[in-house]
């Protein structure tokens, strides 16, 4: 009985979270007039909304821009953050704790505070209206450092010493020993960075003016609120749905690691 109630609550929760998304997905296939109605399923399936999106904005270009930015950022974050995390967790050097605390401190500074100085920098470097301006400021990430450091700490030092005697340098230890043993943490950090970066709207809006360099969320936002959609709800929903697809695909693909990492984050070993 207790279990039954628990499942009821869980189902209600799942519906509450999934409903808007499911509704958005189905509504994007409805004829424009039906969207305001109460039915969930369209009376007739149509791709009109999508056609309008593709006709009015270069969404494929925006998708590619986004993909380049997010892959570059995620790759770089994982590479550099794991190096930092390795140095912070497995190497002994003077000032290690101070550096770690400084990194933690940067997490406490609200992003908004950093926005203007960062923007000024990017302008001075002449990186506006280029993907470089979207990538470089996010090459490293304190959250990823924290996640990876905590995971690396659970790897016994003996293994690394054995590797050192076997002939590994520090970088090889990181990539041939530590990485394979930290896949859940790396996937988790990767997904968090990927999603955060994929959904970023404010920064691209500040840095990018030319349509050819716009990222997908930026373009979809401008399309929805900037009048590109002629006030039609269907195309807005279609664009938003396409924006969400990569995240869903990513999560479904890596969900096994993601969950195992979250579940074991409190357990040692």
């Amino acid at each position, binding site marked *: 009985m207790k279990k039954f109630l628990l499942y009821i609550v869980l189902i209600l929760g799942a519906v509450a979270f999934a409903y808007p998304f499911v509704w958005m997905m189905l509504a994007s296939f409805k004829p424009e007039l039906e969207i305001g109605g109460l039915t969930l399923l369209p009376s007739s399936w149509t791709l009109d909304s999508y056609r309008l999106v593709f006709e009015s904005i270069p969404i494929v270009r925006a998708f590619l821009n986004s993909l380049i930015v997010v892959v570059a950022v995620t790759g770089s974050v994982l590479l550099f953050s794991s190096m930092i995390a390795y140095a912070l967790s497995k190497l002994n050097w003077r000032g290690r704790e101070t550096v770690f605390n400084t990194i933690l401190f940067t997490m406490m500074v609200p992003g908004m505070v950093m926005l203007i100085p960062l923007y000024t920098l990017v302008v001075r470097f002449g990186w506006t209206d280029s993907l470089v301006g979207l990538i470089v400021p996010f090459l490293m990430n304190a959250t990823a450092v924290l996640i990876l450091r905590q995971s690396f700490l659970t790897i*016994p030092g*003996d*293994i690394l*010493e*054995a*590797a*050192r*005697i*076997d*002939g*590994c340098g520090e970088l*090889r230890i990181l990539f041939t*020993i530590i990485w*394979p*043993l930290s896949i859940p943490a790396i996937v988790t950090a990767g997904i968090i960075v990927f999603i955060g970066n994929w959904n970023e709207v404010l920064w691209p809006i500040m840095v990018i003016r030319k349509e050819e360099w716009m990222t997908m969320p930026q373009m979809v936002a401008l399309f929805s609120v900037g009048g590109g959609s002629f006030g039609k709800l269907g195309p807005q929903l279609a664009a938003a749905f396409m924006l969400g697809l990569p995240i869903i695909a990513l999560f479904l693909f890596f969900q096994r690691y993601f969950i195992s990492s979250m579940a074991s984050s409190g357990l040692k070993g």
Partner: protein
Amino acid sequence: MPSVALRGLRKVFDDGTVAVHGADISVEEGEFLVLVGPSGCGKSTTLRMIAGLETITEGSLYIDDHLVNDVAPKDRNIAMVFQNYALYPHMSVFDNMAFGLKLRKVPKHEIKERVDQAASILGLEDILERKPKALSGGQRQRVAVGRAIVRHPRVFLFDEPLSNLDAKLRVQMRMEISKLHRKLGATMIYVTHDQVEAMTMGDRIVVMKDGYIEQIDTPIDLYTQPVNRFVAGFIGSPAMNFMEGTLQQNGSLTFREADSGLSIVLSDERKSSLADYINLPITLGIRPEDISVARADSAENDSAVIELKVELLEPMGNEIILHASSNALEFVARVVPQELPDPGQNIRLAFARSKFHFFDHESGKSL
């Protein structure tokens, strides 16, 4: 030419603790040297300095006459077996053993040859494809040893490799490592806190305490001629019995125990070596097997007979460990199986005079 030479090797940690105070050890080619001592005595730190896993604060370390203080572990031509096996969890047994060879760019067919050879020595042929997770403790330890063998190193280092195994397996692995040493003829340095391992495996044993080397000797000499009270007490199980007292010369040379006033007449042979200690405090030591049950009728000229109360009997089958006491004095004796009085009753024990050890009360030095 010693295979490994430590010259005044000293280790001071960042927090100021001195782990090793100037160790001087020469390990001969093909020797099995055991470092033994209680926890915190610096034996593991010494080994880790040899391996290159700890920096050397002071002193010199030579491997094959090359100064290697600043040489990276991988270039010292050593292999190490860790207490926790330290196998790579994501690699199969084969890959674990082959990893070091791959990094050294050994040709593939040679890697396979060497791994197969090590696997057959250690009986690992059937589990080469398994991951460490799927192995028992003994198998994991064998893989760890195999990983060291395939490298054909000049020196093998073992850091308490058997302490995570159960008693039976420990005895078995102990023999296997000894056999391996004979087979390979390689220099091996072995750290343990288990004096039985040290005594049974080592060609020579280094006894350490608080970062100092107390004695370096063969197992037998260590046992029969300990240089000080610590070594005498540490080597041997059950441990040597000690009594504090003074030496007196009234007719014959007599040891008088401090608290109980118990007197033991010593043999005259000791006169010369103990002459300087008359009327001074001194420690008398006797090993459990040098105490026997006194025969009632015969006069025991070469033994001092003392009447004690039986506290506890531990029959081991081949022998009985007898705990006896008198006032504050406690003794452990190892006697042959026989009818013995029950605990609480008195027993006359004979202490073999020729087997007494004497130690300076202050310094603990053997006299």
